[in-house]
């Protein structure tokens, strides 16, 4: 059994009449990389704010490492919420020392985390002189202080250029390889697909999906089929018991197949029925497509 790091039960947060988080329950297991997806305003940051004890929930509860959340549990969590937050008039290194002081750990690890995020050369510059990418990297360095068991990154690549995004992504993968539990909130689906093993999809404060990325993507295989005679094609497809869904899309049909039944078998079947096909291609669903589907399904 996987060790539960975070357990959330029936969490809700109301802002006046708006429900930012709506009866959310969730388990986070050790060593996984979780992507929290959702459109803007779906309650991602509010949820993270609650589990970090900076936002008071309206209802529900949560526990870290099986304990009631306290400042002690928070010392085992490294987190950035929304934007990198530091004292602008202090140097990067001094800011990290304050974090180390708050976490009650020694300064020994500071040089190493600065090295990890490649900021050693600029450690004596004031935070306010940093570029956006450097600020994000310093925030990751701060999160790494004290060797936390869990890392929470909220939109860590916000506002970065493609190179910066790639750097941060690599950094997160590097941290994940150390066996840390990571919770990564983002609205960049591509980023989540590339870094996460698990997914939580939020919309209007509710979770639409929670599970492995592969589970979501391994949903029924889809094949695009086209033929001269579309009516006949559709008729025969309907007869095939391995076809579980047909959708019209422009000049082709998108066919959902049962697990194990593949494009080649479908081709053979149609050929045997005397339907010459002009187009056949397997469609790999991107996370984005699933995401949009999930959102529109409700």
């Amino acid at each position, binding site marked *: 059994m996987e060790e539960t790091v975070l357990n959330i039960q029936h969490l809700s947060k109301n802002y006046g009449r708006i429900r930012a988080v709506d009866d959310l329950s969730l388990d986070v297991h050790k060593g996984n990389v979780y992507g929290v997806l959702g459109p803007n305003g779906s309650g991602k940051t509010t949820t993270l704010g609650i589990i970090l004890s900076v936002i008071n929930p309206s209802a529900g509860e949560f526990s870290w490492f099986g304990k009631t959340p306290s400042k002690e549990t928070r010392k085992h969590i490294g987190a950035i*919420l929304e934007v990198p937050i530091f004292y602008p*008039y*202090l140097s990067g290194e001094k800011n990290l020392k304050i974090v180390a002081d*708050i*976490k009650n750990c020694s300064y020994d690890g500071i040089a190493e985390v600065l090295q990890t995020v490649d900021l050693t050369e600029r450690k004596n510059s*004031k935070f306010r002189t940093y570029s956006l990418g450097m600020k994000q990297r310093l925030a990751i360095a701060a999160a790494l202080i004290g060797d936390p068991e869990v890392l929470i990154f909220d939109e860590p690549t916000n506002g970065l250029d493609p190179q910066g995004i790639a750097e941060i992504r690599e950094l997160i993968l590097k941290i994940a390889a150390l066996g840390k539990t990571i919770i990564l909130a983002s609205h960049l689906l591509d980023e989540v697909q590339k870094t996460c093993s698990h997914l939580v999809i939020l919309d209007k404060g509710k979770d639409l999906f929670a599970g492995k990325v592969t589970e979501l993507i391994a949903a029924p295989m889809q094949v695009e089929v086209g033929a001269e005679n579309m009516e006949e094609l559709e008729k025969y497809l309907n007869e095939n018991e391995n076809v579980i869904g047909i959708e019209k899309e422009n000049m082709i049909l998108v066919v959902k197949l049962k697990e194990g039944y593949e494009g080649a078998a479908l081709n053979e079947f149609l050929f045997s029925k005397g339907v010459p096909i002009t187009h056949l291609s397997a469609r790999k669903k991107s996370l984005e497509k699933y995401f949009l589907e999930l959102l529109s399904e409700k």
Partner: protein
Amino acid sequence: MIRLLKIEFKKISGNRTFWILSGLYALLIILFFFGIQSVIDDLAEEANKKSPIPLPGLSAYSLPDIWHNLTYIAGYFKIFLAVIVIILITNEYSYKTIRQNVISGFSRWDFLKSKLLTIGVISIAATILVFIIGLILGMLNTDDITAAKMFGKTEFLLAYFLEIYAFLTFAFFIGFLVKRSGLAIGLLLLYYYILEPVARYKLPDEVGNYFPKKAIGTLIDIPNTSIMRLFGVEFQDYISPLDALVVVAYILLFGGLSYWILIKRDL
């Protein structure tokens, strides 16, 4: 406690606004007290010339009365320190560092405690400043110095510390409540110079005397000068324990209210 102060000191160490304002405050106090001596001397001379009966020399700076005189006058400058405290706390909100402090592993109480401790250190520093100035000026203006003279009436220094600490807690609370420095400073000045004086004007003394500015400000009452005695006006020339109790109550009230807000509020 030491750990919290160390963290606070790190936060403050690079804060240029804080050091410039604190330096200005110290300079202002020092210049004022050393400069005012000649003004008082002149005044005394003027008064002596006009007076039909010879007045005893004004002894504003002789020990031990200097402790009362100095702490009373220095009280007028506490508004300057209040502005510094407001900037310290509202910075934590405008930089959102209060939120990050909690995320990193502070409890909300830790945060509040670290600020109340900082206010304590500022109050102690302000008291030490007055003590040093008083010691120098007192020695220069007292004829035969004895230990009894030197340390008589030093309870006024303790009262001064209490006055500053209470007032800064009040300022802290306002800064904490509204989060923005400009607004908080504006509100403090508005309350200090207009709202409370107007409200007190309308109310009987038994009520008005317990308003924060008044209660905190009159812990050290106006020193009785020789001229005032001539006119038969007599002010309280000691620290009343009851007054001190009211001031302590205000410290607890504003500290408690700040804590209550901090617990209720989303950061």
